[in-house]
């Protein structure tokens, strides 16, 4: 600790002066370990976030817990756990991983290399429902993380492992490289700064190249690009495909998953983890890994060890019609002016043109709106960077929230208060790129606490993906249909998804129970008609296979039913 507590608080007060606040509106206290806790209220959420960021930058501050409120802010929620405790013990495990995003699934798979009983809990009806589904799938090269940060280290290391990951797990990965584009001398300093950062972080092959050379490599780049930072190691994967591949391989190696299972309390005794209370009942365990994304701070609070706050930063993404395939292959962005890189145009491995994300601090973790401002930001930026793309060919847009801490770095460490509790928090961009390295780091933290953990000699890192009908040759298609006629029934015409693939998803290792879960596994509904044609067919298949009434089929879990009730006059459901 370089500064004592008094100095830190004085510096904080000084920092507050640039905000237009009443003197008593915001108060702070500092703990011995450099955790600054903020309380009070501000007029806008952005001010609350700015104060948090200011505080996190003060020398001596390790991280910031902000309980600042502002209009629209949602206070930390805590469900009463008593009714769930009363359900009694329903399961047990050595390790409970909370959160079924890419991080949690990567950790689950990593730990299946050992003979431990692993149980992953996800509160939603499917995996990949939070930050992992709504990012642009970029595997960043690592030029823009602050040198010496955990992000910088894990990003470069994680990126390097993606080729092996994609080979082992059988997901699509394109190492396209990426550009950060300069349009004039005003961008020069920022791009050179990124270059220096990249060199320090060990980004392979990084260089600044001329606009013309960049256009030789990527003809779709705008003619007004003067120069660009080029990193050949950047790439793209489909985040939902990676998350599910990890989960399926983890299942193959013995991990178990509970979906629709929300953690409402962490049981501890004498400073040790005892188990978790979930909406499905009590599950005793020795180790809890908190990979709860946007809710990591709330899980940490349940364990009595909250030393960071997650402030959601919303990002919208825009998807274009596949008729744009091949128009721009390489990610291109602009010099940053925010905490996020903000995204630019790219083509996903499935051949979809994707622009975004935007970046907006929002007070509500469940706010997944897309606003006009997001669209304007993304489309203007994309149009500036590219040529030959008609913005009217947008087929959909959506948003998700990054799980940012005020220190804007990952928090991956053993709890200093509760033995057996591991924090894996603040995993935002470049969390997807870093996932392989995050999993390794958590593995070493776990082994540090449990050095005698036996190796799982049966561990098989290989997952063989099932064929996607759309990617098959005509001969392969003929063979598939001969083996299984359901391959001959095309359900989603835009993405050429067959009934066989939908049934495979429904009865897969992580069974798809919702329309969105089917979509993530098969692409049914992702195309240009946005499920206009196939929606009712997928719904019918889900109802048939799960033996439920069509009115019970949901888009994304309870409360999102597509149909309300049978109409009065159906023969089978006459009321």
């Amino acid at each position: 600790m370089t500064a004592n507590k008094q100095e830190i608080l004085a510096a904080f007060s000084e920092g507050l002066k640039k905000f237009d606040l009443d003197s008593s509106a915001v108060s702070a206290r500092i703990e011995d370990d450099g955790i600054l806790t903020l309380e009070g209220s501000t007029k806008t959420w952005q001010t609350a976030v700015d104060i948090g960021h200011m505080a996190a930058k003060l020398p001596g501050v390790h991280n910031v817990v902000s309980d600042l409120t502002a209009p629209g802010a949602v206070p930390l929620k805590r469900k009463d756990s008593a009714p769930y405790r009363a359900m009694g013990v329903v399961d047990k495990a050595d390790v409970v991983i909370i959160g079924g995003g890419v991080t949690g699934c990567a950790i689950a798979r990593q730990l299946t290399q050992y003979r431990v009983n692993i149980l992953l809990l996800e509160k939603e009806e499917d995996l990949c429902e939070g930050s992992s589904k709504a990012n642009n799938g970029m595997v960043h090269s690592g030029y823009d993380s602050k040198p010496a940060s955990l992000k910088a280290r894990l990003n470069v290391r994680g990126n390097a492992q993606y080729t092996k990951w994609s080979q082992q797990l059988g997901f699509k990965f394109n190492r396209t490289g990426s550009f950060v584009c300069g349009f004039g001398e005003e961008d020069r300093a920022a791009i050179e700064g990124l270059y220096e950062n990249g060199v320090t972080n060990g980004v392979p092959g990084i260089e600044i190249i001329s606009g013309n050379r960049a256009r030789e490599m990527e003809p779709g780049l705008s003619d007004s690009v003067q120069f660009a930072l080029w990193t050949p190691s950047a790439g793209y994967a489909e985040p939902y495909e990676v998350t599910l591949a990890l989960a399926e391989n983890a299942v193959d190696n013995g991990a178990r998953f509970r979906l629709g299972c929300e953690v409402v309390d962490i049981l501890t005794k004498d400073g040790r983890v005892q188990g978790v209370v979930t909406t499905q009942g009590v599950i005793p365990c020795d180790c809890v890994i908190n990979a709860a994304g946007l809710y990591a701070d709330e899980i940490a609070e349940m364990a009595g060890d909250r030393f960071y706050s997650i402030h959601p930063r919303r990002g919208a993404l825009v998807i274009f019609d596949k008729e744009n395939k091949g128009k721009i292959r390489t990610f291109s962005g602009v010099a940053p002016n925010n905490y996020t890189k903000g995204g630019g145009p790219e083509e996903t491995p499935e051949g979809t043109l994707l622009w975004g994300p935007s970046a907006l601090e929002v007070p509500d973790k469940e706010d997944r709106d897309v606003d006009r401002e997001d669209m304007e930001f993304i489309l203007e930026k994309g149009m500036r960077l590219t040529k030959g793309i008609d913005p009217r060919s947008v087929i959909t847009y959506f948003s998700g929230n990054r799980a940012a801490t005020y220190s804007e770095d990952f928090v991956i460490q053993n709890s200093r208060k509760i033995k057996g509790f591991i924090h894996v928090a603040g995993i935002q961009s470049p969390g997807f790129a870093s996932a392989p390295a995050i999993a390794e780091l958590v593995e070493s933290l776990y082994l540090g606490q449990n050095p005698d953990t036996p190796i799982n000699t049966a561990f098989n890192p290989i997952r063989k993906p099932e064929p996607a009908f759309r990617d098959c040759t005509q001969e392969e298609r003929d063979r598939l249909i001969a083996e299984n006629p359901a391959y001959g029934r095309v359900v989603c015409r835009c993405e050429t998804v067959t009934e066989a693939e939908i049934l495979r998803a429904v009865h897969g290792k992580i069974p798809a129970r919702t329309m969105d879960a089917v979509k993530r596994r098969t692409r049914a509904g992702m195309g240009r008609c946005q499920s206009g044609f196939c929606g009712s067919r997928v719904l019918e298949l889900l109802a048939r296979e799960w033996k439920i009434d069509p009115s019970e089929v949901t888009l994304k879990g309870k409360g999102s039913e597509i149909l309300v009730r049978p109409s009065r006059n159906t023969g089978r459901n006459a009321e």
Partner: protein
Amino acid sequence: MTTKQYVCIVCPMSCSIELTDDSGVLTVKGNTCKRGEEYAKNEYTDPKRMITTTVGLRGSRLRCLPVISRKAVPKKLLRDCMKQLYATVVDAPVRQGDVIVANILGTGVDIIAARSITL
């Protein structure tokens, strides 16, 4: 003397029609064809509407059979006709034109199947 404005619903032309009632003598103008005149007079004295809806269907992969009235029925009976049809369930197979409800609510109008169901 009363004057009423109607938009004819007989065909896509949707003519604007004016009907005048001069002590029981009805005159119609603005219509393009004879059916327009008929429509306006009907609309003034006893408005009628076609019925198109579905009834329940058993023994088919479809849950509903579309049905249609042979002729328009009095508008004021529309809701009651619907109510009766909602409670109706038929069995496949069905031929287009099969009478599903004869003389619905004593209107003299039959409700018939609007398509064939063989499955």
